[in-house]
């Protein structure tokens, strides 16, 4: 479990804190979405979760290890993988498999196990067959999947992704969401920061941040149907949720966020 206990964080020289007295828990096997306007503290939270930043007040515990304890930094970073928005800033290797091997190799993982881990990580993100390809020849979406593979090769229990789809096209976004689905099934804890409300739909739970504080923490359906809160937080109701609400107001039964086919089916069946 990743536990935030009364965490506050202020960047050096900043007037206002980025996060104020946040208390949260992230469990292995759970898929959590984090939303909020720019500047609400989402990225700071991501960096605190794997010890890239250390709280000014309060503490962050990763499976019992305090991120402020420098002797545990290695263990913490391999428990919590971090994937950032821009894939171009996260690639170090000259070919795909070398890039994926970088992390575990640094940890001193034995050669046989290293091979197995790299192959498994590459397979998990659907890049099998591209092991010897140079990263700059990949599409942006493939590069982002490569970045995820690099984190997976460390064998983390949790993966924190900071707007991993923001710079990708529709196909790239789609592929990333499929990878996340698979990782949850495999038992990873996923913390997915996003500004696309539609991407929160498959999450087990959604947290909305507002000005460094937790404004909502609960089921996705509850947030998505609370139009007042969404408006106040500067968040958008996904289009299919809007369509479904209109249909429901006419007395028909439809899920909260149906697929287009599902919505039409519901309309024509009843």
């Amino acid at each position: 479990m990743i536990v935030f206990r009364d965490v506050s964080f202020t960047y050096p020289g900043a007037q206002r804190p980025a996060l104020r007295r946040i208390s949260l828990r992230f469990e292995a096997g759970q898929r959590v979405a984090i939303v909020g306007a720019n500047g609400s503290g989402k990225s700071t939270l991501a960096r605190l979760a794997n010890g890239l930043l250390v709280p000014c007040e309060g503490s962050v515990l990763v499976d019992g290890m305090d991120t402020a304890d420098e002797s545990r930094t290695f263990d913490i970073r391999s428990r919590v993988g971090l994937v950032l928005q821009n894939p171009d800033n996260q690639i170090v290797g000259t070919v795909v498999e070398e890039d994926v091997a970088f992390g575990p190799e640094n940890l001193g993982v034995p050669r046989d196990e290293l091979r197995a881990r790299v192959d498994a990580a590459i397979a998990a993100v659907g890049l099998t067959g591209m092991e010897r390809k140079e990263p700059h020849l990949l599409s942006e979406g493939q590069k982002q999947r490569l970045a995820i593979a690099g984190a997976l090769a460390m064998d983390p229990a949790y993966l924190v992704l900071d707007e991993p789809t923001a710079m990708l096209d529709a196909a790239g976004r789609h592929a990333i969401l499929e990878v996340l689905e698979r990782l949850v099934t495999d038992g990873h804890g996923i913390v997915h920061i996003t500004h696309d409300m539609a991407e929160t739909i498959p999450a087990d739970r959604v947290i909305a941040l507002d000005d460094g504080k937790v404004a909502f923490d609960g089921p996705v359906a509850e947030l998505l149907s609370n139009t007042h809160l969404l408006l106040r937080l500067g968040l958008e109701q996904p289009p299919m949720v809007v369509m479904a609400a209109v249909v429901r107001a006419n007395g028909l039964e439809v899920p909260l966020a149906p697929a287009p086919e599902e919505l039409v089916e519901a309309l024509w069946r009843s």
Partner: protein
Amino acid sequence: MALVAAEASYTYAAGTQYASDALSDVTLSLEVGELVLVVGETGSGKSTLLRVLAGLLDPSSGSVTVDGLAPGDGAARGRTGLVFQNPESQFFAETVLDDVAFGPRNLGQSDPPYSAQQALRAVGLDPDVFGARSPFTLSGGEARRAAIAGVLAFEPRYLLLDEPTAGLDRPSRDAVLSVVKDARAQAGVLVVTHDPEQFLQDAQAVVVLFRGTQVFSGAPSGLLTDPGPYLKAGMQLPDVIRAQLVARERGAQLAGISFDPEEAARKLLQARRGAR
């Protein structure tokens, strides 16, 4: 008067063994007041087309003209303004106002600071508040708008934007979208994007690129009648549109396709009633 590409092609490293055709026979025209979208997935030739239109690359065959002039012609200078992807990474001046004034100053225009102030206002940034600040202290959305102001400041007739909303959150994206809309009062705007959903509703024309060739060109409504080329180019139709297409396949009589989810839902309900 228009920015016109006529069967423009571009081959990188032409004449060498590394030659690769990035763009084949693309034809389009952009007039003042119009919004034209160029869509396609990564590697489809969008950025090459933009560079060819801006005169940064000379077409290998075919032509590009700006109001009938070659882009390299002195008289065409400043008529086309190109805003690159992530333009905020190219700030260099000490203040926002100086950065935005660079274009008009460089083109020898009469009052660069005044033009810069006007451009900042046009993108919704009060020059009295933002003008004296360092561009490096702006938020993501403010920085993007300031960078667009840097091109608007020299008053191009044709504004070319490469992925203007990529990586922005909703409020910042909305702000950029309204800048794009407003810019059409003085300019023709061409937006290159792999995320066309947010622009489709306002566009007069869409050009779909697939591996360097133009697989669709026409009004957005044409895409909705036959989305084949659009889907082939790796684009996904917005869910709201897909719902209406699925309903039509099931025999629903829809009067036009709506982009707005509430309106689309009402149309579906109506069509359903009509069907009984």
